[in-house]
């Protein structure tokens, strides 16, 4: 384990040094290839903006992913459990699913104007379908034997079956969907913030400031910031949610 970490860090360091060389000595155009050193220094130069930008983007993210989880899980349970609902909703959802989040921007601006909600909405369109699909796949997958056993043991109605059998069974699927949804949703943050819905935010600053002032090292710094936050959220989710609730999956998956 230690060996792996050392290799990993060394490999990245070597790459950075070579990139620095390439950028400063060979290409000599900081707009084409900002040197890693100035990208790293950017984090310090931007210290007055970074926290506010992260918080604003997080707000948009939470609006989008929160509503995606709420609606996605609710509809997913309905679609996965009740065949009528499946038949009714599935075709419409299948048509909406492939629409890229960015394509929703003009509609979002009309529906929600230039507010935090419209930014959250773009993120919603990205996060919703992974959550929905995972949820209903999990619900559909519930083994009949578990449902029959529950019925025999006294589960009186559909609601009990959903609550005591369906949802617990589908929980790993739901979490997997949420994780994917979070990943996709975060990638939509920049698209969501392009249109000046607020005066802060990682995507906003990238597009309204760094782009228009051609501050490429700042831009690269924020690009990596986006990636880093995504990794962190994913790791935190895995550790504090999945590990806690899915102890029982240990024997079955991975």
């Amino acid at each position, binding site marked *: 384990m230690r060996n792996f970490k050392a*290799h990993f860090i*060394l*490999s990245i360091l*070597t*790459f950075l040094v*070579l*990139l620095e060389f*390439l950028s400063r000595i*060979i*290409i000599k*155009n*900081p*707009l*084409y*290839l900002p040197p890693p050193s100035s990208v790293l220094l950017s984090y310090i*130069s931007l210290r*007055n903006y970074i926290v506010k930008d992260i918080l604003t983007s997080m707000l948009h993210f939470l609006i989008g992913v929160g509503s995606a989880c709420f609606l996605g899980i609710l509809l997913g349970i309905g679609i996965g459990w009740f065949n009528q609902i499946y038949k009714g909703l599935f075709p419409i959802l299948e048509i909406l699913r492939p629409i890229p989040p960015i394509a929703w921007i003009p509609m979002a*601006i*009309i529906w929600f*104007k*230039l507010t935090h909600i419209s930014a959250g909405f773009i993120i919603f369109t990205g996060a919703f379908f992974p959550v929905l699909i995972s949820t209903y796949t999990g619900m559909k997958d519930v083994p009949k034997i578990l449902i029959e056993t529950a019925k025999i043991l006294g589960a009186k109605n559909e609601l009990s079956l959903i609550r005591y059998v369906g949802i617990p069974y589908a929980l790993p699927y739901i979490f997997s969907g949420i994780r994917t949804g979070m990943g996709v949703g975060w990638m939509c943050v920049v698209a969501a913030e392009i*249109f*000046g819905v607020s*005066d802060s935010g990682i995507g906003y600053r990238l597009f*309204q*400031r760094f*782009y*228009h*002032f*051609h*501050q*490429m090292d*700042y831009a690269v710094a924020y690009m990596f910031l986006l990636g880093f936050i995504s990794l962190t959220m994913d790791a935190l989710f895995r550790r504090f949610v999945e590990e806690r609730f899915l102890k029982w999956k240990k024997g079955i998956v991975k």
Partner: protein
Amino acid sequence: MDDMKRNLFFTLLFLSLTMFFILCKKREKNFLRIGYQPITDHLALMIAMEKGWLIEELRKHGIEKIELKEFPTGPQEIHAMIGGEIDVAYVGSGPVVAGIYEGLQAKIIAGVHLQGYALVIKKKLAREYKNASSLKGKRIATYPPGSVPYIVFVKFLINNGISPKELSLKTMGPSDAVLAMERGDVDGVFLPPPYPVILVEEGIGEIVETSHTIWKGHACCVIAASNELINKNPKILVEIIKVHIKATEYIKNHIEEAVQIFSKWTNIKQTTVKLAFDLLDMEWIHNPELSIPSVLEYGRVIYELNRERLKRKKTLEADDIFDISLYKKAISEKF
């Protein structure tokens, strides 16, 4: 140890491929790419193209084809120029300075336009408008940071003791801004011509300030050319400036035709364009020296806006931004 060697090898391979790819970027030089925006400021270019004057002169110097690229705003146009997308640009002077600060290899070689902007506020608010402080707490749309409208507007606020933070300033392109005001997403816009007039014509807003009242004679658009072109093929640029002078003079005596051509190029109604001529103080020029004082001021504002970053660089002087020699040559050859 083997793992590390392998990593090193692939890293080097990747980097050398990248280098190879970058160094291999060559461009054919028998066609010229010119950038512009759909604003009346750039009428001279539209007329020169429509009349065929530009290609006629340039053919004599080896240029087979002229490729035009339209951009919604100046900063976006300059960003593309940095990427090598265009060789010559009809563009706002502010973005040129912002670009040079970040390493753009280009200079301003001629003037294009002065003034012409207007602040349009929605009717209800316009009645109560007194001065800049009436804008506190309102939502105003203008061009992106670094552009001339943005700088002029911000300076307007600051000169009147108002910080931009005291209102909600949203930055976007011209059609987005007009749309935003039509929908009621913003209370006012500060835009280049003829866009403010669209809102007046539609009865949505009224003009409360113009360039004239805010900053008389301020520079607006210029022609910028890449240093590469200035050094390697100045003759072409001199020809371009000569045609530009001809087209600029043409506007003043052929307003009807100018309106028609602009309408054809941008699909904006002729009545709107006509109205712009009536209501706004547009002034077409060709002498770059007329722009120098305000452009240097733009440079100072850009410097202030990016203090933390630019404080290590030296402030730009006129020689860093302008190259007047080509204009002087064009004038002497023409008259």
